């Protein structure tokens, strides 16, 4: 098995699935000759040729809209939106059509489309390159939303997304694109959509998280153990819609103390959704109110104030303290 970074695992996942399913094509801005601005499609053009790895005109509505037609027409398009922020021009196609084609046609037409997009902050890029707007897309019925936190999951979840018959928004936390290497099998394998992963076991409190924030939670959990002997469980959701409600409930029941940690702004974010689910279902198990540790309700700042915005270990520790010492 090769040790791959997350971005290499994405590439590997695309290649593995393209090898075994000729319907899979990759399209987007700079995905061909350039191999993607993060190199997530590097080498694919050479292996699969220009009919399957396609540099498109610079138009997100064009990319997503035509990908809908390609998908209905029998292909398995994997469209890259260069940065999550630039999905906005394609929003109309995604929410007005991809999300509801199955429902409108009572199942006669489906849109097996994957939209891959680097998301989140932490790499000090220019303006409009750091958003994580997952909550927006979880709010639109009909789209699945997936975000891996490590290389192994990235490959398996991506292949599962490509094989799924519904549109999947596949968010890639670019901050951890090259954060770690992990053993990744060479063949095509899947990690099921809709299933969370316990990234760290613990009995005292639960940190619910996803994407790049999982590493931050793990680090905070280590610190909580070192400094307070608190055993924090870290739940990595992996799929945000549909969320693994059983895993969330089981952990909340076990620890009775939950902090949700996400990088996106707080208001109307997924933290609110998770807190509501928990209090609706296991209210009597709770030892403390569910706490949210999140980005602030401001546009993602430019590089010099990025660190003020992003939740870090210190802020997650404060969240742990709040639920433990309520």
């Amino acid at each position, binding site marked *: 098995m090769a040790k791959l970074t997350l971005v290499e695992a994405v590439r590997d996942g695309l290649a593995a699935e393209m090898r075994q399913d000729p319907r899979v094509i990759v399209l987007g*801005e*700079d995905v*061909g*000759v*350039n*191999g993607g*601005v993060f190199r997530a499609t590097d080498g694919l053009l050479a292996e699969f040729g220009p009919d399957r790895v396609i*540099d*498109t*005109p*610079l*138009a997100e*509505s*064009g990319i997503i809209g035509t990908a809908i037609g390609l998908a209905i027409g029998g292909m398995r398009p994997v469209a890259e939106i260069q940065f999550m*922020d*630039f999905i*906005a*021009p394609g929003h109309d196609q995604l929410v007005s059509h991809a999300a509801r084609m199955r429902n409108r046609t009572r199942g006669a037409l489906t849109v097996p489309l994957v939209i891959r997009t680097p998301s989140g902050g932490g790499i*000090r*890029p*220019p*303006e*409009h*390159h750091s958003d994580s707007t997952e909550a927006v897309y979880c709010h639109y019925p009909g789209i699945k939303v997936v975000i891996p936190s490590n290389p192994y999951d990235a490959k398996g979840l991506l292949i599962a997304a490509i094989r799924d018959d519904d549109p999947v928004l596949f968010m890639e936390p670019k901050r951890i694109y090259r954060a770690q290497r992990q053993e990744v099998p060479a063949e095509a394998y899947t990690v099921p959509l809709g299933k969370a992963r316990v990234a760290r076991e613990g009995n005292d409190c639960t940190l619910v998280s996803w994407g790049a924030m999982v590493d931050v939670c793990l680090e905070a959990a280590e610190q909580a153990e070192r400094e307070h002997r608190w055993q924090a469980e870290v739940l990595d959701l992996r799929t945000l819609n549909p969320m693994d409600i059983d895993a969330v409930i089981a952990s909340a029941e076990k620890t009775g103390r939950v902090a949700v940690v996400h990088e996106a702004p*707080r*208001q109307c974010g997924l933290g609110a959704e998770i807190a509501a689910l928990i209090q609706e279902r296991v209210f009597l198990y709770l030892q403390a109110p569910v706490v949210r540790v999140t980005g*602030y*309700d*401001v*546009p993602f*700042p*430019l*590089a*010099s*104030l*990025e660190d*003020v*915005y992003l939740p870090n270990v*210190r802020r997650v520790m404060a969240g742990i303290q709040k639920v433990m010492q309520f």
Partner: protein
Amino acid sequence: MGSAPTVTGECVQAPLQCLTPAGELAAPLPPGLDANRLVEIYRWMVRLRAFDSRALRLQRQGRLGTYAPYSGQEACQVCSVLPLQRTDWICPTYRDHGAMMVHGVPMANILRYWRGDEWGSHLPGVYTLPISIPIATQCLHAVGLAWAARLRGTGQVAVAYFGDGATSQGDFHEAMNFAGVFRLPVIFFCQNNLYAISVPLARQTAAPIVTKAAGYGVAALRVDGNDPIAVWAAVSQAAARARAGEGATLIEALTYRYGPHTTADDPTRYRSEDEVRQWQERDPITRLHRYLVHQGLWDAASEEALQEQVKAEVAAAVAEAESLHPAPTDIFDYVYGEAPWYIREQRREVLAEARVGEGGGHG
């Protein structure tokens, strides 16, 4: 010598060229472009080149964030602005900070922006929008600004800057259509530098960009974008047409960026050194320099003085930009006119943490 250039409602395919790469006039000087103006254009282009190369070096030293260079496109950046009035609006992209400086934005602001400080976009009294990173969106803003100018009778013109890649976006087409339908005083200024990051022009359009105007009832002109005189002529005529109530003009300026798309990009993946060299032979600065020297308007002494002056100017801007820092609370203070409760709460949280930090950290 050809005849003086004119902007018409028809598509003009051959690019307008007034000054050859050898520095010889290919058309009469357009009205209003006298010796003083030509020297002013030259000085600006040299200033912008110096800024750009300094910015690239700063980025390599880790003193600037990701940066989008414009070297090679100075004729476009300078001569799309100089024929305008100070009160005309410009709507730039991330590559048009050169044009912004010509329109009155201090160098230090541009540096602050690329250092990741939003104060760089704080531009009171300068008629420019902040740069647009989302592609083509600013084309519609320019149309709206032109519309407002018409409704209010201010006589202002608005210029939308964009690249060849931007012409693939719906917003570009919507903007042209509105401008055509409402006959608005707007200039669509396309710097066709042949690539959108790595994707070549042929992947953006199967027809020349200049021909797109016809379908929207917008006048169009194609110019040699490395020819400062041609760009000046095209823009000044488009502005005159706009002010005379004759509506919008699309200008397709054929040009080239020598550097990477941004400092995060590796252009060797998609274009050859040879291609870059060929474009360098058409360099806008060398071209005008040759002409000015030939006319006796410029010499080695004036060049040396200019280089010294520009070096000092850029150094002062760098020092200023590096001495200024945004406050952490800045992220909260400009989201709304009056901050809602949740932002006030979050602001207090950050302030409290900052105080803890000053007190030597928490236990």
